[in-house]
């Protein structure tokens, strides 16, 4: 039996229903151990937010239950709340309050000892690089600063488990990197992080990753474990004729998945398939002009593209 104390999240058959029929989360069960950075990835509408909101006691599960450090979100939300921090998808602080006012408001609401509010706020602001903006109203912060303030606010009561719902959506790349540097710092201090993200490169930074689609968790593993599930090689084709390329490659039995990512077409193909040169020839003989055809290491982006496609086909077969 796993130590109940080491278990941060234990979800059992969690479901959430919108109205009478739509299942946003469909019978989800999983466990997260203390100290993990658990990444929840999946497309928009997969049910990530609903799952996070149920786990953080904001949303009542329609069915099932989850224990957070052994306390049920359904029956003992008051025991769960002090131990968690929750950062929702949208910026959710008071725009007309200053950085400091936002921090001390939530500190008081969370019952942080009075004498600790000031030093803790100062530490968090330093940590988030917001010290010089302490007296600025939140509405006048940049997107990245807003997110860092929101993170600082969710940390004010020193939670053991952080729920972050797409914390870097709409944030510039530099701020994103910085945000993840902060999360890594928290992780080193032993805080468990549960983060939903649509970005695959962020999934790479997690210790464990679960892929969610259609309200279900389709698979979960370490990033390396997931990547090893891809049984082939990855090839990137740079071309302006992405659609033609895709149509040319898809019918072949050795093509496991073909996806378009920006101006690159990514092909995962079986190890016994053609060589890169043969594929290049195949395209040029069909009149497609390519700027590059290069093999790359299988990354999370490709992994998810592949696994999602596989899951979709399995579902089709099943039904």
């Amino acid at each position, binding site marked *: 039996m796993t130590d109940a104390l080491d278990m941060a999240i234990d979800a059992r058959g969690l479901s959430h229903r*919108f109205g009478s029929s739509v299942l946003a989360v469909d019978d989800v069960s999983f466990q997260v151990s203390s100290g993990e950075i658990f990444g929840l990835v999946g497309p928009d509408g997969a049910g990530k937010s609903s799952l996070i*909101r149920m786990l*953080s*006691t*904001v*949303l*009542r599960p329609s069915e099932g239950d989850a224990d957070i450090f052994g306390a049920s979100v359904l029956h003992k939300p*008051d025991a769960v*709340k*002090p131990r*968690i*921090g*929750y950062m*929702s998808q*949208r*910026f*959710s*602080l*008071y*725009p*007309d*309050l200053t950085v400091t*006012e936002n921090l001390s*408001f*939530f500190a*008081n*609401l*969370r*019952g942080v000892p009075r004498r600790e509010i000031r030093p803790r706020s100062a530490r968090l602001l330093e940590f988030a690089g917001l010290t010089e903006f302490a007296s600025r*109203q939140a509405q006048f912060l940049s997107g990245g600063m807003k997110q860092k303030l929101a993170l600082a*606010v969710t940390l004010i009561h020193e939670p053991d488990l952080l729920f972050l719902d797409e914390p870097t959506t709409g944030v510039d790349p530099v701020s994103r990197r910085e945000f993840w540097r902060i999360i890594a710092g928290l992780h080193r201090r032993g805080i468990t992080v549960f983060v939903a993200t649509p970005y695959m490169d962020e999934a790479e930074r997690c210790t464990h990753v679960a892929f969610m689609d259609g309200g279900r968790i389709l698979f979960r593993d370490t990033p390396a474990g997931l990547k090893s599930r891809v049984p082939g090689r990855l090839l990137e084709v740079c071309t302006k004729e992405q659609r033609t390329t895709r149509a040319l490659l898809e019918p072949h039995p050795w093509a496991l998945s073909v996806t378009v990512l920006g101006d690159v077409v990514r092909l995962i193909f079986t190890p016994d398939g053609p060589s890169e040169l043969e594929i290049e020839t195949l395209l040029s003989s069909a009149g497609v002009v390519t700027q590059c055809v290069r093999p790359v290491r299988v990354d999370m982006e490709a992994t998810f593209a592949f696994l999602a496609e596989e899951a979709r086909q399995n579902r089709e077969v099943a039904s």
Partner: protein
Amino acid sequence: MREALRRIGAIASKEFIHIRRDPRIMIAVLVMPTIQLLLFAYAISFDVSDVPTILLDGDRTTASREYLAAYEQSDFFNVVGRVESQQAIDDAFDRSTARIAVMVRPGFGEALARGEKASVAVLVDGSEPNSAQLGQAYATALNQALGRELTFEYLERQAIDPTRAGGITPFIRTWYNPERRSADFLVPGLMVVVIMIVTVQQTAVTLVKEKEQGTFEQILVSPIRRGELMLGKVSPWVLLGVIDMLVVTLVAIFLFGVPLRGDVLTLGVATFLFVLCSLGIGLLVSARASSVEVANLVALLISFLPGFMLSGFAFPLHSIPRFLQVVSYAFPGRYMVTVTRTVFLKGGSFSILWPQIGALALYAVVSLTLASVLYSRRPD
């Protein structure tokens, strides 16, 4: 307990920051009520004066001339002319040059001299019911007063003791508002309506705004309880509502000259409870509204219409349909209007007003409790 108070305090002081940083709220709270009071009070004055009046003297005796002269001296009637025929009266009414016509029939003087009842016809143009009704009342009062005087004079001339002369003449006196100034009647009621509109409106938005901002979810993951959230939200507005009432009261006293005859403490307590009721209504709206726009609209409808129609401030409650009378009990306005009128005009205090004040207290408790129950902790 201490932690609970701290959380309530945190919400309350945050609300104060919102209020302080938003000049629109300050204007809405302190300037709007005064402006509304001024607008409404001048717009819906029921005072009637200078009603255009024409006179027809069919008797042409000293008595009839004296009688008609009384109309010329009254502020209420503005004698615009004298006519010679009934046809001329019809014309004047048709052209709206006159609203009241006073006709002294031939034989008026003789009848008085004989001690008989003299007859005078007062014709009133009913197309403007309010002035018509008042006009009639004034004319009747004038007639009675004059009639008595004329009779007395006659009796005295005959050296008969007037008290034994028999024949009772009704004596009309309006209490509490002897001049029948409509400001005295309207302003205390209007204060209530204005306070209600402002407070309901402001609180109706407060919870919905937290939902729209997403801050509500942050509050949800904190240990705060619903009741604490409600108390924290309400307390700054209680203060502002009472300040509002103070401002409006000063305007009523010094600008409209409404007398404050009763107990200020009673008025203060009732105001406090009434503001709580309005805030309860506002929070009820906010707990269920889907957006700030909806909240604003519903708040306006729910405070404005019942405030006007069902508080008894403009339309006497006993004269509205039975069904609406019952409905009116569901709005705190009717209790508070009774309180303000009684305190301002009749000098009433708690000993008379305890039923209304009790009703307000009960209403406040029920509405605030209901609001925090309806404001579901976990949204679906």
